[in-house]
């Protein structure tokens, strides 16, 4: 742990003292033992170290610590090899550039063919991102992105979608100790042009475009150094949804409601990617024969309190149609409003959820409503944590073989137009 803290130059001279993990969820008796017990890094009693740090003169080595080794990114070679396919596959894996699955090797010919999928210049800067491992901001050109698109197995006609994902500047993987998942939604005409799946098994590993576009997003994060364990990547358990980030198309033709991108201000005939992130995803068995969908959601969402009222509900067209035709929700916004008013949980349950306490309590302390008022309530008082219906995302996906839905605490992180990246047709 010490080595990790000292990797950050800002922390190099600060005194750190460690207890065993976990601190979260341990009893007072265990914490007492941690305090008198030994620091796992030094083997010295924690309480003695605390007192020493506060009362002993600062050592010269603390005041002038050895500078942490800054790892400046070496100028990468543009071309690797020549070598055999087996050796190159091994090189890519051992360099930490893959998800562990074999990749398509990005030969210059393949990258050139990928570039034909966009009208953007190969040298155009498509993205800029911060590298946690080197502290540098790096710009990536369309060609750089094409290399990764090839690796993921993309066809050139998928490339505009991948470039649009990149332009959102949202990484698929982030350096949390928790297990974030991400989701990638495609709307508009391009869904059908590239044969994306929005119907039966849309989230299953059976469709090339869904699989490959979502994989490209993760490979992007991996190749930018976001997935180096204990260096830039800390997720204790990880999340296998990151293999393709739930990449899916919305079933616009079968939905009784407006498409998601139209809700976000785009034109219906525009092709758009939207990204989401969250922790909890509950895939239901579709059981709503004894309770209404609203009652089911009330039970399901109670186990995943929302950050800033955010939820994402992905429902089969059958579910949306039932809500509209039989329950009177003419628009998805009507149903989101119903959810925001009717999904309740006790205030104590909400505030005692660790990530709510960590990430929302500060808003309550600074007077932001409704959190400031909720903080003053008795534990058993019911609150409506989905207080802002605008942050409840409703998406329609499925093959209409069963009225299924998925409920999640995923929050919307942004959308980007795909059309600006598309190759010009010969008639254009």
């Amino acid at each position, binding site marked *: 742990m010490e080595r990790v803290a000292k990797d950050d130059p800002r922390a190099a001279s600060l005194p750190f003292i460690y207890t065993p993990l976990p601190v979260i969820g341990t009893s007072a008796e265990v914490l007492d033992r941690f305090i008198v017990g030994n620091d796992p890094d030094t083997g010295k009693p924690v309480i003695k170290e605390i007192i020493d740090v506060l009362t002993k003169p600062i050592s010269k080595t603390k005041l002038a610590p050895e500078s942490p080794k800054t790892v400046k990114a070496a100028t990468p070679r543009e071309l690797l090899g020549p070598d055999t396919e087996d050796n190159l596959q091994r090189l890519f894996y051992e360099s930490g550039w893959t998800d562990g699955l074999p990749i398509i090797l990005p030969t210059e010919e393949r990258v050139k063919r990928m570039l034909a999928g966009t009208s953007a210049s190969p040298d155009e800067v498509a993205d800029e991102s911060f590298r946690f491992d080197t502290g*540098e901001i790096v710009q990536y050109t369309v060609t750089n992105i094409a290399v990764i698109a090839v690796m993921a197995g993309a066809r050139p006609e998928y490339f505009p979608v991948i470039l649009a994902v990149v332009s959102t500047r949202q990484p698929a993987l982030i350096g949390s100790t928790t297990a974030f998942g991400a989701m990638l939604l495609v709307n508009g005409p391009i869904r059908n042009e590239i044969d994306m799946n929005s119907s039966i098994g849309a989230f299953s590993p059976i469709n090339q475009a869904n699989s490959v576009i979502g994989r490209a997003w993760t490979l992007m994060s991996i190749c930018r150094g976001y997935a180096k364990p204990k260096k830039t990547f800390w997720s204790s358990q990880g999340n296998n949804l990151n293999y393709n980030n739930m990449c899916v198309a919305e079933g616009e033709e079968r939905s009784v409601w407006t498409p998601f991108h139209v809700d976000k201000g785009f034109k219906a005939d525009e092709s758009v990617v939207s990204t989401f992130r969250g922790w909890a995803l509950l895939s239901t068995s579709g059981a709503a024969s004894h309770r209404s969908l609203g009652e089911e959601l009330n039970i399901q969402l109670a186990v995943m309190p929302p950050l800033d009222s955010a939820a994402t509900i992905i429902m089969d067209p059958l579910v949306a149609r039932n809500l509209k035709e039989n329950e009177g929700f003419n628009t998805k916004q009507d149903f989101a409003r119903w959810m925001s008013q009717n999904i309740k949980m006790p205030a104590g349950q909400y505030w005692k959820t660790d990530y709510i306490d960590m990430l929302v309590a500060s808003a309550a302390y600074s007077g932001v409503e409704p959190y400031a008022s909720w903080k003053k309530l008795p534990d058993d008082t019911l609150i409506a944590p989905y207080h802002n219906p605008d942050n409840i995302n409703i998406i329609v996906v499925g093959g209409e073989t069963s009225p299924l839905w998925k409920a999640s605490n995923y929050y919307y992180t942004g959308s980007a137009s795909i059309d600006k990246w598309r190759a010009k047709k010969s008639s254009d």
Partner: protein
Amino acid sequence: MGESQAGFNVGQRTQVALLVKDAAKPGTFEWREIMSSEVRLSVMSPETGVQKAKGGPSGGPPGGPPPGMGGPPPSLTSFARRLDTLENKTVYLVDIGFGGGYNFMLQLQKWFKEHMPSVTTIVKRKPGNVFMDDKNDLWEEVKAKGHAVVLGVAG
């Protein structure tokens, strides 16, 4: 002649072979490999990108460094002089807001009460976001009323 030559691409390997009569088995033929070479490829690196600059202070992702990262390290001369003793001093125990931190500080306070009763301890929770610095009254209070501070805990 009784012989025939052919080239094959077998996976990553190019093979050239002869079809020859098998002397031991009249009327049968077999392929004999006479040359083999593996295909060697040059590929483009996925790591290429143009370094623009070291990260500077920013409002956080996407794109830029997260809050607090990328700026210069703190000045080494800014550390407070250490105390000679904690006896009769006031020590702030500041929980940053990460899960379990507040309970840890309460137990640390209990330890001081039991073992160093002359030390006054004040447990506070940092009011701002757990992952960000606070520009608020707490640090001023610590400076004005406290002699030392223990900040933590995460995990």
